[in-house]
């Protein structure tokens, strides 16, 4: 389960960011922000060719001492970032992938909402619930 989940707009500003309440929120903001360095590099490395065939899941960006940062980029260059505790070895690549897919579906639902203006911060209960289900439960 993730400790932080973020949605980043094409222009690299945050659309949605939530982290476990037990830890310093700012730390995760910085972590997500710095991970964009790698994402940018990966996206530019992929180039423009075969845009529709490319893999959306960018995988593990880099491991830090305590956390692993995963990323997923939609075709419209919206980024999903997920931070997972390094000690959580039970979580495998496949599961991360499916979590991202669920997140993407939920995001698509948000976009389909005619009252949502693309580019605004996401304020959706359905999306919130989806994110909550993926976060580490704090009792």
């Amino acid at each position: 389960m993730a400790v932080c989940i973020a949605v980043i707009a094409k222009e690299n500003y945050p659309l949605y960011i939530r982290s476990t309440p037990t830890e310093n929120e700012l730390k995760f903001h910085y972590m997500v922000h710095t991970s964009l360095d790698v994402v940018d590099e990966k996206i530019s490395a992929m180039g423009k060719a075969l845009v529709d065939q490319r893999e959306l899941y960018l995988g593990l960006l880099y491991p830090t001492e305590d956390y692993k940062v995963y990323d997923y980029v939609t075709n419209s260059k919206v980024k999903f970032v997920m931070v997972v505790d390094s000690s959580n070895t039970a979580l495998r690549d496949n599961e991360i992938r499916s979590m991202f897919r669920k997140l993407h579906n939920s995001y698509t639902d948000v976009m389909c909402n005619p009252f949502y203006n693309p580019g605004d911060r996401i304020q959706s209960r359905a999306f919130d619930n989806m994110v909550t289900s993926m976060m580490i439960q704090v009792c």
Partner: protein
Amino acid sequence: MSPTRWDFPVELCCRPMAFVTLTGLDVVYNAVHRAVWDAFCANRRADRVPISFKVLPGDHEYPKCRSKRTSYEWYIPKGILKTGWMNKHLNLVPALVVVFYELDWDEPQWKEKQSECATRVEIVRQSLQGRNTKVAVVLIQKKAPLPPGEDVIASERAAALCNVCELSGKSLFVLPHTDHLVGYIIRLENAFYEHAQTYYYTEIRRVKSHKEFLNKTTHQICRLCFQHNTPLDAIAQFRKHIDLCKKKIGSAELSFEHAAWMSKQFQAFGDLFDEAIKLGLTAIQTQNPGFYYQQAAYYAQERKQHAKALCNHDASVTYPSPDPLETQTGVLDFYGQRPWRQGILSFDLSDPDKEKAGILAIQLKERSVVHSEIVITLLSNAVAQFKKYKCPRMKSHLMVQMGEEYYYAKDYTKALKLLDYVMCDYRSEGWWTLLTSILTTALKCSYLMAQLKDYITYSLELLGRASTLKDGQKSRIEKNLMNVLMNESPDPEPDCDTLAVKTAQKLWADRVSLAGSNVFTIGVQDFVPFVQCKAKFHAPSFHVDVPVQFDVYLKADCPHPIRFSKLCVSFNNQGYNQFCVLEEASRASEVLENLTQGKMCLVPGKTRKLSFKFVAKTEDVGKKIEITSVDLVLGSESGRCVVLSWQGGGGDAASSQEALQAARSFKRRPKLPDNEVHWDSIIVQASTMIISRVPNISVHLRHEPPALMNEMYCLVVTVQSHEKSQIRDVKLTAGLKPGQDANLTQKTHVTLHGAELCDESYPALLTDIPVGDLHPGEQLEKTVYVRCGTVGSRMFLVYVSYLINTTVEGKEIVCKCHKDETVTIETVFPFDVAVRFVSTKFEHLERVYADIPFLLMTDVLSASPWALTIVSSELQLAPSMTAVDHLESQVDKVVLQTGESASECFCLRCPSAGNVEGGVATGHYIISWKRASGMDSIPVIRTVITLPHVIVENIPLHVNADLPSFGRVRESLPVRYHLQNKTDLVQDVEISVEPSDAFMFSGLKQIRLRILPGTKQEMLYNFYPLMAGYQQLPSLNINLLRFPSFTNQLLRRFIPTSIFVKKLAIEYLGRRGDSWMTPLLLLRDDQDQPSVFRQRPQGSAYETHCDLEL
């Protein structure tokens, strides 16, 4: 313990080298040995294998090997790695001992020498008792060796020597003392290195079998892995090492030691990584030394926190004495051993008093460590790395941390510098949470240094909409800001060091007392201040005779209402600035008063509209008026005041993205009262055009298109004033509209005077023709003549400008108005001219014959939609042509309607001209014409048509006939043929006349005669017509013996072949008076002069004798 407790020992930081000892070399007295030694040691370059050599006597005592126990429990005192171990293996225990011995293969006393050598080897073996050190023998020989296999004695003796010394063949070497010493030495060295490596590998395997033993060797393993270009192995080893040690925190009271140790580990690995990169390893974005420095910094921070928590002893606590950290020898037996446990040989380590004293000593020592410095060094190392590996955001993050660390270290200047540097990165990417956090720290720094401008700037942004602070916080900041503006000290920021706050308060108090230089202008376009501004002109353009109007919208995002003292707008034309200032005399104390009324007060969340208007200057017509800045002044100029300055028509770092989002939004905005507007719906319009006053005149054009080429085309311009007052200085510009094809400018000419034809010197556009003043309702007319030299369509411009006095907002201005009309006029050819050459019999001619008359016919076909008057026509003959007749015009004063044509016919003759290539020039045909409707004053246009060239051919014999224009039945008809020799030769001519049914005739029926050059012969025949009507004449056949090409067909071109024969006149007398057309006939007179068509004089006696057969 020294402060460098966590530094690695020297032997760990050097490059590990294989240790090889050389024995049997007398480097002092033996020159050969000296040379060998020098070759080994002197000038070792980096590409040589890493071996450290040492010359030792053969019986050198090596460190004794202790007997190994089977269980670790036996070892007391406990410890993992002795401090001397590394040094021992690097510098004392060799991997290989080499025995040098002088021995040639053909040594006469071989046996003795062999046994001496074996003894030496044995001595070395003895001294290495128990070690796995290898032994090798090198024979120094005087002779160069033979190629392998050829020296039978050598191989035999070598085998024997190996046997005696108990050496493998691989450990016996030969060193011939020849010219190539260094080459041999290098080969030897490589062999030594192989042996040494084998030794170390066995040793490592043995050491590794001690299961706990992993600690410090990690460093060397990683270094080796990097050196062997397997960075992933190095990283994996390091991870294994760290994962193992991470959890082993040890004593809770000394947990900072663990953090420090971890920090050191990461730093060391980062250094190793960096070193490897300098040696050519390539790192990547996600795996570079920066990460390790960063982690090292984190551990250093952790260390700081632990130390802060654990080492906060009272000042009364004194350092324990005797110093528990001192040992008698000053060195430790084992790495990581507590000094006070040194030498304790029991299992029970806990001497509680000693332990306590020791821990206290360490804690007190830790207090003197400058943690921030360590952290900052590590962070700046990491920054340098991340900069290199394209991680701008990581770099910014680390710089923020550095800034914060400087803040903790109370170096506020440096902290501000760093924070200020990275702020814009977070701002431009819209990470408001992070920006707020940075701003908060920055605000503290600026407070503690009492930096007024910075303090105000950060406050402005922390109060703004980008700030994620809670309202309570914002309230506090706003209050502080107001205090500052009223020349008072702000309250201290929360969570600041109390000592620093005290200093700061003093600084602020000093600032207050200082007067002057208290105006701070802050350009806000690069950040997100708490007042937003949008300026908007009412329209993208204004006529000069109406006032320019615009609104400035302001909105405050702070929690409490705010008053401003002044608003001024600056323009690119600074003359307007004075009209757009809003100022209210307000005392500084009023700023805080909760006045929601009044223009100068901004209520949070409400959009305030401030309207301005001014009259544009007449010289700005056609120019753009741009708002260059909007300045909002907070506070009073007497106290402190801040000028928020927006560039252009407002907008800050976040507003463009907001405008984009607002534009995308489909959301319906809630209805507001009429006088309020939604902030998002306001679009900045920072510039407007000043355009001239709307003209109130009419301009009409009267003309008759299309224009005819080269004519003076008449364009009548009528200008009528509809203005209410007199208009002055009316000027007309007319002509070809600029910006069209350049060729048109060359071929279009405009004049006001239609009486004369204009030439090339006239312009294509007449500008600013003064036409005087016009009273209201008055009109004037002006005629412009245009001459177009080429066909095609042209755009013509008629532009009328004038001056009028008018009043705007009680101010009299002189407006220049103008009205223009554009008209497209087609130019066409007035007529088409066709020219033909025909024979005197009106037969088409491909070519003409020299000296024989022919006809030139011209047809002028009108192509103009308007009637044309051909004033006259003229034929100008080329010198090669002569006219047979008078050349007067036959079409004078003819009026041609559209599609009609006028034809003329001229009889010409071309003297023999020889054979001219391309024919002979004929001349020019000139038509003078004008429009039928044109006035007399309009000049006549002469159109010159160049006539085509004609091919002239010579003919040997010219025949022409004299005969009456008609015959009459049964009346004699005399016909005379003239034969003229046109050559320089005597011509033999055969002539015959063939009989015809219609005629009887008398004369020579067949004759052969000679005609001398240039002379003429006449043949006279008397024909007697038998039948009426057009009758075939008896045909004349001529045969020239010299010119067989002269055929009868050619002949027929010159002489008539038939004639009209009338019936007897007496028979038809009753028909007289009928006005029938009389036939046109070509007549020839005796002089052989063809004449033009002629009608017979009417009313002659003959005319009435017409034939029924007509």
